[in-house]
């Protein structure tokens, strides 16, 4: 079940979701750049034809979304690389700035750790993995959105 291919898909969806949030929430700080195109933050909706086959410009894409929440402003940064019509690299970087994300009420916690990197799931003997859920429908939507952004 935990094949490398699936993981790639999951990672890709992660970036797509964050990109969608950028689009859908009208982020105040959206910015995009690519090495060879002027594509910026994803459009809220593509032309409705994003499922058609096509080519996407190679390049590094980047988008940021910032939101206000009760704890202050938070930002998620997404980088992804497209080469030969494939997403070859993706990363999602949450960037907390202030507010409750910097606070911690120790008296109710068993522990606290900074920037947990964790262990490779392959090295663990587990019967299940608990992460965020993902739907085929949602996944497909997310991929379409990336296509929409990257359509050359």
């Amino acid at each position, binding site marked *: 079940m935990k094949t490398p291919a699936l993981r790639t898909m999951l990672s890709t969806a992660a970036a797509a979701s964050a990109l969608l949030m950028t689009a859908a929430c009208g982020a105040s700080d959206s910015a995009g750049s690519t090495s060879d195109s002027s594509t910026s933050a994803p459009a809220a909706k593509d032309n409705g034809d994003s499922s058609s086959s096509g080519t996407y410009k190679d390049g590094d894409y980047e988008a940021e979304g910032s939101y206000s929440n009760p704890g202050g402003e938070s930002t998620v940064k997404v980088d992804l690389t497209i080469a030969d019509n494939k997403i070859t690299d993706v990363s999602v970087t*949450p960037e907390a700035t202030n507010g409750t994300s910097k606070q911690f009420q120790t008296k109710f916690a068993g522990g*606290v750790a900074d920037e947990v990197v964790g262990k490779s799931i392959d090295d663990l003997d587990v019967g299940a993995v608990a992460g965020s*859920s*993902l739907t*085929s429908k949602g996944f497909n939507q997310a991929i379409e959105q990336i296509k929409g952004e990257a359509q050359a």
Partner: protein
Amino acid sequence: MASWRLEAIGTAWQVDTVQPLAADVVAEVLDRIERFDRSWSRFREDSVVSDIARGPGEFVMPDEADALLTFYGELADLSDGAVNPLVGRTLADLGYDADYSLVVSSAPAAVPPWSSVAWRAPNLTTTEPVLIDVGAAGKGLLVDLVAAVIRRDVDAVTVNASGDLLHAGAEPLRVALEHPADPTRAIGVALLESGLALCASATNRRAWGDGLHHVLDARTGRPTDDVVATWVVAGSCMLADGLATAHFLTDPAALVGRFRHEFVRMHADGRVEWSPDFPGEMFT
């Protein structure tokens, strides 16, 4: 071991049992899911929830509403209104609608307070059209209901609905807590004893992607980004699911003081905190 994989309420499910389930049990499970969907889905026109969204009135809710809406009411109180099943309209306006338009409306609706409706089981009385979204705890409740159907027939079963997991069996189940930014890694392992449920929730991967829930702060009508992932172990999957959402939006003290559960939560800056008796191990 036998694994039954199915798609239900917009997400992937897996039911593990020692022997394959009998055909009549499978049929009963599918019927239970269908009845739940017909009541609660805001993505289908013929649901009770869609009926409620069309106009005010008094609506007779299904049996499971007693547990679900009462629980929501408590979460709304504890979270100072941040958790609220009336976020549906706002979610839809933000693009998470029945057509998955992903187009944000120019003026997303404010979320009406939960106190603006009257809930006295089995009747829900509304004074305006409201769109209910039970994404925070509904899937967990359905896991409980499905597991109850199966456990009338067999003792050992693990129901895993993509992040909502209920386990019953002789051996505890070891569950990796997937790193929200890297699905190849785990930040820890939970040891799930028989009869307990574990729910995981993360915002970064399911925005507009999950058929059930996206974490909005009902007070602001905006997505929350301070906490990026939560895991909760509790005595029922509904509790674990709802509390996993509540931990994005609420002081843990308020939740720990009211509901017996253990939690882990990860902040946007990578910090992780967990409750004293969380069953398992954190990789710090």
